[in-house]
């Protein structure tokens, strides 16, 4: 069970894996996540589901080497297995409940940051297949760290790339591109931002003035991921919510991002690793 059927290094930090997990693949929908335990003594690591094939029983995950556990995941070879995989977890994206009629011609803007491009992909693909019009902005530090560019181009109407250093697409941040698109007269009915918490915070601040509903997917800390431990709690609209069973997607304008950012750091001082250099937000 949970065998790694295929593995591709997307760049020096990010690895894509196809994993045999038939029950997860059969039930997965856009917006959901899963939990992987790399080996017997490993942690429960929440990862977004990047793609799924219920026929073959395969799910695709994308992992960025950040700390001990993500390295353990990335260092597994094709043919090896994970100790455990459980999912899908969390609510699917709200749009899957819309009728085909409603989806047809509906205009979406997706803003993906770094690894967040992975969970954006199945959502864009799903909407594309249901006749929606989807524009996607992918932001990365540099061209080397861009992922899913070609795959995304195949399923969206317009793809816009931004990099911090200008090595691909426009030089600058995803928020610059958001402002630019709106200034050019682009109109959207709905927007989704997925990426590092700090990026989602700034996309939320940037979009607020445009009156476009915005959804974010919160990558909080989790242990069980099934609504038992409360590690994932976030304040949304002044209320405590559990991202694992009530999320992970929430109305961006209601999220207390500063609290969420602080909570992500809770175990930074005690994580069992010594050489952690975060490349997410430099």
């Amino acid at each position, binding site marked *: 069970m949970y065998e790694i059927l295929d593995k591709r290094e997307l760049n020096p930090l990010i690895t894509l894996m196809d994993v045999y997990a038939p*029950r997860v693949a059969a039930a997965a929908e856009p917006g959901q996540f899963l939990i992987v335990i790399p080996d017997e*003594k490993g*942690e429960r690591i929440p990862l977004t589901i990047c793609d799924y094939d219920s026929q073959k029983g395969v799910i695709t995950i994308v992992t960025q080497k950040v700390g001990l556990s993500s390295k353990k995941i990335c260092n597994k070879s094709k043919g090896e297995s994970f100790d455990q995989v*459980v999912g899908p977890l969390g609510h699917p994206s709200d749009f899957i409940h819309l009728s085909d009629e409603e989806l047809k011609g509906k205009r979406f803007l997706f803003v993906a940051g770094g690894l967040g491009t992975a969970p954006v992909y199945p959502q864009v693909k799903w909407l594309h297949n249901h006749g929606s019009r989807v524009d996607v902005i992918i932001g990365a530090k540099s061209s080397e760290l861009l992922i899913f560019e070609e795959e995304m181009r195949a399923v969206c109407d317009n793809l816009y790339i931004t990099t911090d250093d200008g090595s691909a697409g426009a030089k600058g941040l995803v928020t610059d591109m958001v402002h630019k698109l709106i200034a050019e007269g682009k109109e959207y009915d709905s927007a989704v931002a997925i990426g590092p918490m700090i990026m989602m915070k700034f996309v939320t601040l940037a979009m607020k003035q445009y009156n476009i509903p915005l959804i974010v997917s919160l990558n909080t800390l989790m242990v*069980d991921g*099934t609504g*038992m431990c409360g590690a994932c*709690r976030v304040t949304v609209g002044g209320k*405590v919510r559990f991202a694992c069973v009530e999320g992970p997607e929430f109305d961006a304008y209601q999220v207390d991002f500063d609290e969420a950012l602080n909570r992500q750091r809770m175990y930074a001082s005690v994580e069992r690793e010594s050489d952690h250099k975060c490349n997410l937000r430099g």
Partner: protein
Amino acid sequence: MSKIPRVKVREQDPKVRAANFEEVSFGYNSEEAILEASRCLNCKKPLCVQGCPVNINIPAFIAEVAKGEFAEAAKIISEDSSLPAVCGRVCPQETQCEGKCILGVKFEPVAIGKLERFVADWSADNGIQFSEKAAPNSHKVAIVGSGPSGLACASDLAKWGYDVTIFEALHRPGGVLEYGIPEFRLPKDKVVAREIENLKNLGVKIETNVVIGRTLSVDQLFEKEGFEALFIGSGAGLPKFMGIPGENLNGVVSANEFLTRNNLMKAFRSDYDTPIYVGKKVAVVGGGNVAMDAARTALRLGADVTIVYRRTEKELPARVEEVHHAREEGVKFEMLTNPIEVVSNGEGWVKGLTCIKMELGEPDSSGRRRPVPVEGSDFFIEADVVIMSLGTSPNPLISSTTPGLDIDKRGCIIADESGVTSREAIFAGGDIVTGAATVILAMGAGRKAAKAIDEYIKSK
């Protein structure tokens, strides 16, 4: 007979055990068990049996222990309980069987729990199993959750010939026995894993990593997987918080999170990856068994621990033995104290609790005197970790994805005494029906539901 004092159980020295996760109590040896068993009066109308939620024939098994016939004793227990090694350790005997023991009126009650534990451990050590079962009847029953209610339900159904599959959301079976109750009270490999092995020997299949309501829906279990009946024993659920300012500061965790990291994920062992933040000064808010478990775990991980409870020692919902053990080990208690704010250190972390003193007023709906704040009594308790142990509210995963399954105001599944719910073929029991309660009550509910499921399938 009653002149013999209750045989004391040998325990690890409090100073030693405060720094390890080995089991606190060593349990009786054969001589001690026989001596203790000889104290039983073998009452004609045994009140202890009435006090037992699963009505174990207590005088009968104790009589066998007194004769040294331990295997016979085990057989008698096995007729009514599928988890004796667990119940002998974690049941609140003082309010159940032992609370009714007639010896307790003048002297000390017979140590029924310790005897049950002895018999269970002895038979496990000697490879004795009671896996007699009826011929397979090929009726498929699904059980959701591998905690005490699910295990008990599965055990009975398997013995009656049913084809039973347990679906467990976590990666290890056992539910609260695995993630909640710590090693020093309930050893995982020696006791929990062994009980689960016994169940597998009865033919019960356990599929881990299946979250009912997400991986599979209840309706899919019937339609796609071909089950004829379903028992939901999915357990207690989401941790409650107080709703006071500062609760989402770093350093504030639920008891469920703290215990899950330590027990299920084995954070106390340096060879496991899961981190746990213990801090130097820990405040545990709450007074139940879970609060005691969290406090004693934090203590073992090296912290200075204080339990903050809004009533007095008399009202503590935790078992007397757990409170006693916690105190012996060095856990401090701040009674009649209620936090009103979690105070920040200015950098996103907790530095302590602002508390208010309480006094007891009129009795509330639980019959206990209601704690009332004393105006102007605010004071500060320093803590770099705060563990909230205030109970849980039901997990919505199953109820929100199962049409026609009625829930009450709290979100608990509505089920009658035998586990019958508002939907045909769906039965439920344990904490998901009652709200957080005890292992033995959940077990009892699982067994009653097994009977109801048997009758339901036979009547079809």
